[in-house]
């Protein structure tokens, strides 16, 4: 699913990632660990195609329509309600039976009652749940999760893991410094060192 050779990225004079080789097979769950500044976020953004490498190359066998990316920020508009945000993304992802899908996700992640509230008023945990709805909205084949467990309570984490792994048809890359919260699910690991 993902193939990288000699992958590197620098921001100005700062080298964040260098000489990384990576192979992730289809339906694999890869856990990326490493201290702050070791390039976990950069790696995920490279896979998502949000940034281009400055060295080496990367191939991903999924186009934007089949990638779900949970970033540090929830990537939702604070001025809009949760429902409006998901409606917007639902349109952009061209999801068939958009209403049903959105309603189902909101229900599942416990946001249904808050769907008409202002996103700005949501708690951190609720925002993270909304971000998860956004990530999973289009039922992506490849899911990239950047520190998914921060600000997510135990129930939320469990919900996320169930959603991701119950039928094991997704490829998942998780960057986290709390690997224990993944439970005992089978994973391969990539440890990034600080540069």
């Amino acid at each position: 699913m993902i193939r990288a050779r000699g992958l590197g990225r620098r921001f100005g004079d700062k080298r964040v990632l260098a000489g990384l080789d990576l192979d992730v097979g289809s339906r694999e769950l890869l856990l990326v660990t490493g201290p702050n500044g070791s390039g976990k976020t950069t790696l995920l953004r490279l896979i998502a195609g949000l940034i281009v490498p400055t060295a080496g190359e990367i191939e991903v066998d999924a186009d934007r329509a089949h990638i779900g990316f949970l970033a540090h920020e929830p990537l939702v508009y604070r001025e809009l309600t949760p429902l409006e945000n998901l409606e917007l993304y639902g349109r952009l992802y061209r999801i068939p039976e958009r209403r049903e899908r959105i309603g189902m996700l909101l229900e599942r992640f416990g946001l249904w009652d808050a769907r008409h509230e202002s996103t700005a008023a949501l708690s951190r945990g609720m925002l993270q749940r909304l971000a998860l709805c956004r990530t999973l909205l289009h039922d992506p084949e490849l899911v990239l999760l950047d520190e998914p467990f921060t600000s997510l309570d135990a129930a939320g984490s469990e919900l996320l893991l169930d959603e991701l792994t119950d039928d094991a048809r997704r490829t998942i890359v998780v960057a986290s410094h709390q690997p224990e919260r993944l439970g005992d699910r089978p994973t391969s690991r990539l440890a990034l060192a600080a540069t």
Partner: protein
Amino acid sequence: MTAYLADVAALTRKDLLVELRSRDTVPAMLLFVVGGLVVFHFALADDSSRLASAGMLWIALLFTALLALVRSFVAERDEAVIDGLLLAPCDRSAIWLGKTLSVVAFLALAELVALPAFALFYEPVTWELVAGVALANIGIAAVGTLLGAMAAAARARELLLPLLFMPLAIPLIVGGVGATLAEDPGRYLGFLALYDLIFAILSWASFEYVVTE
């Protein structure tokens, strides 16, 4: 094609909704453009011609547009929401077009107040002026939205955007003032349309390059 237009519509709708909720930009533009017209009365000498007031109107419109442009990507830049749009499978130029259309809407709203105010304070508004303003709006929004996305990557972006935009706005001012004053406004309206065409195509084609890192 229909899908593309649907994306554009969704994005424009989102921008208008965000503005409707936050009311950050349009009220500021309205106040600014009327304030500008009042200030110009005191800047112009008593015996200034109608030529001078037409020039002043265009300056006021340009600077008001800058307010809208400086604010245009604020909602996306705060907390990197732009990444969410870039992740979506829609063509990136649709993001530009959606934003451009919403900027055109904001400009039109501001001018809905500015032109009657100009008629009240200074000179009657001619249809040539209205046509010129409409054509200039397209050029301002098209180029300004692209430059706004470019400046978003920079430090001091609020300062940079006017600097980037000013030289590119000179032809728009020429066309606008010409359409307002010249005896053959058709030439100037044609020039504005040409400008819109050239720079809208350029901006449309190059937006993808300036938003990805």
